[in-house]
């Protein structure tokens, strides 16, 4: 039993140090012989036991005696612990692959593969001090009238709904990959703009006005706004240039942007978005799953097409495919 536990540990250590590789090889040989009911001839377990005893005896003879007498039992305990931690580590790896967090979807506890917790970071909307702040479990699209929001690739069977804002850095991180993923996977894509940052209200109104005039140009505008520096987003001069870039008349558009009715519409949309009980951007809905924070692209792809999404082809296509 000791050989198996040692093999697992030494294999990992062997990745980092050649010193452990030969020991891991001995352990493997020992394991292979044991599973075929042959005695271990390298003396690996004996060697390791002696080395361990040699170290322990210097500290405590009593502990060394206990270890010597109960080595097999302790090896079993050790094996179970190693097995347990291996299973736990494998689970963590799987969860990280599927959800972007070792501890499960939207779980913010420490994850060795994402030590800074970047996959769960959000731009907080000001909730104030609430007695029961919402959690990921509270998030829902039920009761939200999505028809009020622009949709890209309306013929798609599945749907990606992104709640975010132009000026939010984490939304900026995933907007383009999500839009591209939706295009590649033939899914509907809705962007629900919730200007968390006050300085992006101009962009919100501009987007609304462009959407009213030409839906195709609205998506082009989004690309421009997400590519722009955040400090430009509330700059009328930049808005004018963006309109010109889209071939729109700023004289006409500027009036729309300043129209209080447009701001009221933006506010109503924000009220509609608030029904989801979201608490930060980006929040992404795909099917029944909700993703809070900027997850790796594969996480969204798995949510759309399952664990083996890459077998269905796409290969990370960057085509717009509207």
């Amino acid at each position, binding site marked *: 039993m000791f050989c198996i536990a040692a093999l697992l540990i030494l294999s990992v250590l062997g990745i980092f140090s050649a010193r452990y590789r030969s020991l891991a090889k001995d352990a493997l040989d020992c394991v292979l012989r044991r599973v075929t009911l042959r005695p271990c001839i390298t003396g690996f377990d004996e060697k390791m036991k*002696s080395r361990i*005893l040699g170290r322990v005896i*210097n500290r405590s003879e009593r502990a060394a005696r206990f270890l010597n007498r109960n080595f097999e039992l302790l090896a079993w305990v050790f094996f179970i612990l190693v097995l347990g931690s291996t299973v736990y580590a494998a689970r963590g790896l799987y969860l990280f692959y599927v959800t972007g967090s070792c501890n499960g979807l939207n779980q913010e506890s420490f994850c060795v593969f994402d030590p800074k917790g970047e996959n769960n970071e959000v731009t907080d909307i000001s909730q104030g001090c609430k007695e029961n702040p919402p959690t990921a479990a509270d998030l829902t699209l039920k009761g939200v009238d999505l028809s009020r929001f622009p949709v890209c690739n309306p013929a798609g069977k599945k749907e990606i709904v992104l709640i975010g804002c132009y000026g939010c850095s984490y939304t900026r991180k995933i907007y383009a990959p999500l839009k591209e993923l939706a295009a590649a996977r033939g899914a509907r894509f809705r962007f629900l703009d919730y200007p968390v940052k006050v300085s992006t209200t101009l962009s919100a109104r501009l987007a609304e006005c462009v959407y009213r005039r030409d839906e195709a140009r609205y998506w082009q505008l989004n690309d421009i706004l997400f590519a722009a520096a955040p400090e430009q987003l509330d700059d009328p001069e930049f808005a004018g240039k963006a309109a010109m870039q889209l071939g729109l008349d700023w004289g006409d558009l500027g009036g729309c942007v300043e129209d209080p009715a447009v701001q009221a519409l933006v506010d109503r949309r924000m009220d509609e978005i608030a029904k989801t009980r979201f608490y930060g951007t980006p929040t992404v809905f795909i099917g029944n799953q909700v993703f809070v924070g900027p997850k790796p692209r594969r996480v969204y792809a798995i949510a759309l097409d399952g664990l083996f999404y890459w077998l269905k082809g796409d290969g990370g296509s960057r085509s717009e495919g509207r």
Partner: protein
Amino acid sequence: MDVEAVRRDFPILEKNGADGVIYLDNACQSLRPRAVIDAINGYYLTTSACSGRSMHRLAEEVSRQLDQTRAAVASFLNASRKEEIIFTRNTTEGINLVAHALDVGEKDVILVSDKEHNSNLLPWQLLTQRTGAALGIVSSLDDNSFDLAAFEKLLDDRVKLVCLGYTSNLDGVSIPAREIVKMTHDHGALVLFDAAQAAPHRRIEVKALDVDFVAFSGHKMLGPSGTGILFGKYPLLEQMRPFMVGGGTVSSSTYEGCEFLPPPEKFEAGLHDYGGIIGLGAAVAYLQRIGFDAIERQELLLNRYLTEALRESPRIRLIGPAAPELRGGIFSFHLPGIDPHRIALMLDQMAKVMVRSGQHCVHSWFNKHSIAGSVRASAYFYNTIEEAEVFVRCLRKIEKVL
């Protein structure tokens, strides 16, 4: 002898305390003093040419140094002439050389003891298989010392050669060499001593002993590994056919035959480890400077301490006679039911105490006595009482724990 001063000659012993090692595996291989290392380096740094072939000054210098070493070894053994000294790779090669070069017939008998190193057993087993000769085994006494009476019983006119380990690597016991040679010669047979464990620790005077062959290695007597010596009486060497042949063994050759050089050249085929041989010369000089009296005194001091300190240990089974005077620098023991390798590994882990464990290439003895193996602590003149104390302290702990 100032042990502390001597220790400073050995680079490996420069580290002290927890960083230093306690080397008690000298029966396997000794440490090397700086003088030997410098001599080897000197060859590669200053001459680095071949001997006995080329005529240029570097080759001449190597030839001179080799000749000097041969003369030094001859003097070390008190041989009649330096041509009786053959450079080999080790004791094993020396013994194999005799086993292949000596005329042995099917009616002959070879005698060995029951605790020979494989290097002094297997060559004779193969020889007897090859020639139809018989192999006689001289049993040891109960305390593992040599049984002269049993030996005498086996000695008859059919005995062609007696091959014995001068000092056993198993327990450090030396044989009564002078008596054995006399008794053997009285029956018209030859004597070969495997002196691998003797040459580093005691004076061997081949002329006084009248022994016919002596083989030993450089690596156990401060010399480099891959070097060894075979001494043979010159008239015997002259009669013997060469073992390995090739470059350096002949004065001339035709497509039909060749003319062999006289000993020692006819037994020294091919290019030798010149750097090693020069290093061996330095080792011999170093040993002579220290002196065997001092070496034996220090070994006895250490073995007395070990024996006394561990005498009362209830589980330690000493291999060999109880008296340390009869065991040189070797303290070989086993704990019944405990794998000796475990003890050796623990000693290493506990205090970097290096000992040998296992059957020490004397499988035949261990098989005969149904003992799995032993732990062998073998001291040399550079070991100290403090080191022996650490060994004893660790061993006592191990005995309590296992």
